């Protein structure tokens, strides 16, 4: 059995060849537009947290582990291997990251160990999928189970012996001191406190991005362009990606497909492990059993959301992190304000569909949706706590429902590859 997913797009059709290319100016314009929109909604609703320094800071912190897991997924899938075992590799990362951080008294040792722990999970996955040709999903599920059992076992054996540790948690991990971009903090903060429309919003967002940021966060963010650079600009990357698109073609040109797949999956595990280490060392400062809470799966979702590209994936995890931070910080108010934002965005989409695409029916449906959301916004004044908590998940689902058809995964993802067998 091979679980590769049934595609529901019009069967047998040639995939759309047109790809829009995002250039830096467009990305910046888009981001600025988004902040303007947020500022408008903030002023309209009084939900100040939408553009607060703290929310942005927390959003980044929430996005990083998801993004790292997503990068892990990206590396594996670009080489043709589905990695549903990200969650397990992340779990290994939390444990080993915490253990080494405590044992060596140095958080950076934890960072390295977390990556290594995840990489071991990746190696196991590579062994199963590449060498033994096991279905990728099966192997991933098994790794999740094994990792869960292993860390429970290790905690019981090792953390219980440590001062402050226990069966379900590690001792406190030494901290990595956060850094701030010098000089701009004070003036920006002064601006931010003025509550001027737009100006304060920009100032706050900048503050959130530049002040009190963990160096580990910076490292994680750097890994996004680094991944892009390696995979899309170097010979190594081209070969690796070719293994995910058409491994026979790569093999016929002398590329050793097996070893590239191995490297990719091990790196994938290391990234997921880093995500776990981040969670333990920076986000929590401690290892707790079950602290990954499904973030590995969310990382996978962010990767698909991002169309198997580093930039898109970063956007996906940021969206997730941002909505999660909002709901955790001032859930009821902020999420309620988001309803207005969604309503405005839907109106924008409806107009686009009408004017640029002449899709009248779609535009009407979207407009009705916008109206409905607005009504909900208008007649309620907060969102029940039980609902705010799935905001990030719902948003992801909705965005995918709108944009999924444009996604294009590497052509050979999930397919078994055996040297000299397929054509």
């Amino acid at each position, binding site marked *: 059995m091979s679980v590769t997913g049934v595609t529901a797009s019009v069967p047998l059709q040639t995939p759309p060849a047109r790809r829009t290319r995002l250039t830096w100016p467009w990305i910046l314009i888009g981001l600025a537009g988004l902040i303007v929109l947020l500022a408008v909604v903030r002023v309209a609703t009084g939900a100040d947290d939408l553009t607060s320094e703290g929310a942005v800071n927390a959003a980044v912190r929430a996005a990083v582990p998801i993004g790292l897991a997503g990068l892990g997924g990206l590396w594996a899938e670009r080489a043709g291997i589905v990695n549903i075992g990200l969650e397990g590799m992340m779990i290994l990362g939390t444990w080993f990251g915490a253990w080494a951080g405590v044992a060596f008294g140095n958080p950076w040792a934890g960072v390295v160990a977390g990556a290594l722990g995840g990489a071991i999970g990746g190696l196991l996955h590579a062994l199963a999928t590449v060498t033994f040709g096991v279905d990728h999903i099966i192997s991933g599920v098994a790794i999740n189970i094994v990792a869960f059992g292993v860390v429970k076992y290790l905690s019981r054996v090792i953390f219980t012996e440590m001062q402050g540790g226990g*069966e379900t948690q590690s001792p406190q991990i030494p901290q990595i001191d956060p850094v701030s971009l010098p000089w701009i903090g004070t003036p920006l903060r002064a601006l931010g406190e003025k509550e001027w429309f737009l100006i304060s919003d920009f100032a706050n967002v900048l503050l959130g991005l530049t002040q009190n940021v963990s160096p580990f966060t910076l490292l994680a963010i750097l890994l996004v362009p680094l991944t892009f650079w390696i995979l899309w600009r170097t010979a190594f990357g081209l070969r690796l990606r070719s293994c995910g698109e058409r491994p026979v073609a790569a093999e016929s040109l002398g590329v050793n497909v097996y070893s590239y797949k191995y490297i990719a999956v091990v790196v994938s595990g290391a990234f997921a492990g880093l995500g776990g280490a981040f969670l333990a060392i920076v986000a929590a400062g401690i290892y707790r059993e*079950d602290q990954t809470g499904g973030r590995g799966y969310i990382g996978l979702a962010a990767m698909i959301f991002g169309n198997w590209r580093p930039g898109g994936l970063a956007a996906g995890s940021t969206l997730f992190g941002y909505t999660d931070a909002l709901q955790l910080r001032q859930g009821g108010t902020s999420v309620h304000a988001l309803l207005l934002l969604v309503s405005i965005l839907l109106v924008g989409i409806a107009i686009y569909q009408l004017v640029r695409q002449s899709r009248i029916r779609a535009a009407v449906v979207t407009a009705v949706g916008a109206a409905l959301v607005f009504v909900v916004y208008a007649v309620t004044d907060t969102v029940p706590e039980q609902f705010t908590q799935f905001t990030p998940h719902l948003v992801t689902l909705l965005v995918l429902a709108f944009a999924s058809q444009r996604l294009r995964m590497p052509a050979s993802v999930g397919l078994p590859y055996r040297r000299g067998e397929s054509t």
Partner: protein
Amino acid sequence: GAENTDSAKGDPSQPAKPQGAKIGLAYDIGGRGDQSFNDAAARGLDQAKTEFGATANELEASPGETEAQKEERLRLLATGGFNPVIAVGFAYSKPVAKVAQEFPNVKFALVDDEAAKGPNISNLLFAEHEGSFLVGAAAALKSKKNSIGFVGGVQVPLIAKFEAGFAAGAKHIKPDIKIQTKYLTQPPDFSGFNDPAKGKTAAEGMFDGGADVVYQAAGGSGGGVFTAAKAANAFAIGVDSDQALTADASVKDVIITSMLKKVDVAVYTFLKGFASNSVTAGSTIYDLKVGGVDYSVTGGKVDDIKAQLDELKQKIISGEIKVPDKTTG
């Protein structure tokens, strides 16, 4: 198995006293070492073990398990000759009710639940809302911005009791005080008790939203609340045990007080009663009056308001103040 081996298999250097009972203890998820409410039960057990020369066997629940598995755990203890058997957590309610019937000669204690009744069942209950009332009052008294917060781990009735008492206490001092509340996850997702990252973000949100004292009833996520308080230069209130003692050294100084839920005392008292053959079936409520719940003063941060708090305590004990145990709405 590491740390509790000796207690079960018997430590040769410390010959078991002849009258020593064989105690069975079934933990909720997390077990010994969860630095929270299971740990408190373990402390009570340890105290009893040394004092009465008892031996014990401790079993632990797994996440997501069925009632049948809990029952089986209790049965294993009962059939293994363990008597009394203590079950920690309301999830053991039905299993205890059932297994206690099967073993009428074994005494059972059930922490946090009085729905299971039986001639051999002692229900150990806590008035968490009363203790929370006092720390709520403390928070209101300490808040300079007239704004405080509550972080709950998972939105379940038990934690709502903490919230209700806390809010009532704060409002009692300052009726117009602003209280922010946040639960980290919804049942049956119990990861809210294990996710310090979420605890930190939620508390930061509250501090940014104007609060300067935050009370956490979030189990393992509470550490995140303390970290956030430290960074915001604000105060936090601990829960269950005296967290100014147990928390990490770096955050101890932000914990002005803790709401003490003395599961250890309850467990110890029950075991002591068992040793002296004076165990009574039915509910024992560990409230302010008997010192089953309380607030802590470690660190001296509430010394200035101690008199006020003690006065409130007396009023609650005397029944002058009735503390609600349910949130409204």
